[in-house]
């Protein structure tokens, strides 16, 4: 599947949350691509929807791609990046590390072995590495990690992240980023980038992928048209795939579906097993059953059918919107951060939505 022309190029990817971070992610790759031009490279940037369009909280990915115009064929289209391509990965919300995204199954999947990872977080590096090793590694990674609390520098988090990235990564120089900011009319942000560059402390890391990650995906044999069982097996495999390539492979194919492009949906009482939505969540509800009066409002008002009839949350589907907590008449539901719920850690770098809404401009 690997495409050598793509592998020769220099890639940076930015993982962020739809709507909350759209403007920040776009700023970051636009500045990077412009910095590439300042450095005499040819560059391109784009956003990919894959299976998830830009919607509140849905993980989304921006790409900046650079190459030498004399030898490389630089992209001019939004390609599907398959293979070991990425040189640098930026994560705007560290809770993205806690779940597999829908687009690329793992954040560090598709990286070159010496990739740089920059995470916007208040958590110490060892905690971040712990979770990366546990959840985000399909192959060995010997690269660098930079932790940065971007929001302590600037509400527009793209700029401190750029400074930190420049420090750890030889793919781009700080001078070129400053040059790009001038070109883009954002010269006033130069000091933010420089400050973050000065403070960033990249650490070298080597993480070995666990046995678990190497477990192979079992794909079913298609038996024929209208075969619901095969179809379900493909769906389950797609939902459980650990890497991007696995997931692409496991998606149920039109060939195994019925003629006329009919999909098999769930039967009443079931859920859509082929697509879970936990990746949207950075907060989760906690229900105090002692207080609950069984009014069913949280159940009926959950947009994702994740709150059960008996007020038990299905974490495969909960997107963490917070509606259930808001509508509960007896305040039996509280929202807790994903890091806190999973690891007992407080992540202060979570961008609150209210703040994001003030910043997000069309």
């Amino acid at each position: 599947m690997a495409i050598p022309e793509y592998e020769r190029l220099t890639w940076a990817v930015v993982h962020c949350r739809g709507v909350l971070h759209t403007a920040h992610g776009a700023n970051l790759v636009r500045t990077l691509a412009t910095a590439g031009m300042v450095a005499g490279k040819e560059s391109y940037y784009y956003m990919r929807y894959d299976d998830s369009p830009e919607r509140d909280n849905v993980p989304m990915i921006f790409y900046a791609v650079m190459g030498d115009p004399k030898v490389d064929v630089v992209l001019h289209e939004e390609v599907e990046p398959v293979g070991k391509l990425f040189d640098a990965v930026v994560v705007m919300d560290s809770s993205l590390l806690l779940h597999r995204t829908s687009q690329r199954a793992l954040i560090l999947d598709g990286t070159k072995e010496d990739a740089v990872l920059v995470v916007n977080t208040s958590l110490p590096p060892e905690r971040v590495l712990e979770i990366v090793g546990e959840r985000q590694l399909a192959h060995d990674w010997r690269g660098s990690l930079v932790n940065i609390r971007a929001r302590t520098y600037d509400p527009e988090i793209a700029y401190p992240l750029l400074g930190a990235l420049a420090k750890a990564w030889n793919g781009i120089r700080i001078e070129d980023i400053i040059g790009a900011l001038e070109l883009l009319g954002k010269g006033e942000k130069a000091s933010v980038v420089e400050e973050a560059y000065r403070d960033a402390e990249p650490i070298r890391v080597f993480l070995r992928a666990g046995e678990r990650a190497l477990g192979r995906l079992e794909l079913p044999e298609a038996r024929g048209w209208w075969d619901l069982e095969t179809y379900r097996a493909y769906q389950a495999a797609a939902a459980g795939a650990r890497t991007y390539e696995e997931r692409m492979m496991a998606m149920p194919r039109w060939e195994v579906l019925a003629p006329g492009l009919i999909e098999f949906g769930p039967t009443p009482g079931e859920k859509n097993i082929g697509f879970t939505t936990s990746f949207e969540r950075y907060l989760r509800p906690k229900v105090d059953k002692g207080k609950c009066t069984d009014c069913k409002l949280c159940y009926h008002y959950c947009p994702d059918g994740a709150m059960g009839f008996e007020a038990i949350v299905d974490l495969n589907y909960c997107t963490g919107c917070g509606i259930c907590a808001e509508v509960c008449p007896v305040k039996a539901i509280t929202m807790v951060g994903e890091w806190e719920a999973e690891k007992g850690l407080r992540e202060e770098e979570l961008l609150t939505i209210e703040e994001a809404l003030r910043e997000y401009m069309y």
Partner: protein
Amino acid sequence: MSLQPIRAPKELGSVDYYTSGHRTCAGCGPAIGYRLATKAAGPKTVLLGPTGCMYVANGHQFLTSPYAVPWFHTQLGGGGAAGIGTAAAFRALISKGKRRREEVNVLVYGGDGGFADIGYAGLSMALTYDYQRLLYILYDNESYANTGIQASSTTPWGATTTFTPTGKVKRIGNERMKKNVALTIAAHPGVRYVATSALYPPMDLANKVRKALNSGGPAFIQVLTPCPKGWFFDPKHTITLSRLAVETGAWALWEYEEGTFSLTYKPPKRRGLRDYMRMQGRFTHLSDEDIERLDRMIEEQWKLWLESDRQGRLILPWTPPPTPL
């Protein structure tokens, strides 16, 4: 068989027909409306709808879908025609004896782009037929949301959208007044039941869906469904905003059954519009004075809504629009 009214949320039951596993925004109002409406309609339902968030974000993720009943994604202008086509097919199959005689609901759940603008003609045409259990629901998120929030004819005055950005030259954002689609549908003599609804009060939509399906003819409901992405608010506030929309009187809840008009919710004391507007990022550029002007307009409109309710007849609640500023 007639569907029973729902007195308490418990009675709506625990089975979903539009179920988990879709990629709408966290806190999506139209998704809540879809869940409630399909639960009220029950298992003997076919779902249709013109393209928009409720189809683009709901169908085809890894070639799967969250619909537990048959569904069909129509062309953006085609919701009306697809609805009567489906209802006609059922009628034909039953009358030819090719299908058991049974009542099947045809529920077309379409956006404001799909029903207020692009597919409005088809909707209007469809409502001149006499098909029973054919229900059109307009989920009004007040924009073309799926394509990135463009103004539609139901976008309220003042709102920022990608088509109506606020700026130095045009401070206001959207300068057109929101079209009340349900009022225009009430002028179709063949329609048995027309209503407006919201996600608050909790069972308002579910009960109106049941009334509509029981009405014995084609029916229409316009339900206001807040959209966190397009209205710029924290997703947790979707229901809070639904509630504020009806309590401030910004959205009047009424039904029109065979010529008789009634309000289904009368705010005991109308809340100031400010509470509703100031929670939404799309109105942040409006001044207090702008909001007061709108509030006075709503005050005038409510005199007419209440008069309609008193007489049981529809009087168009027209008032002069806010003068250009």
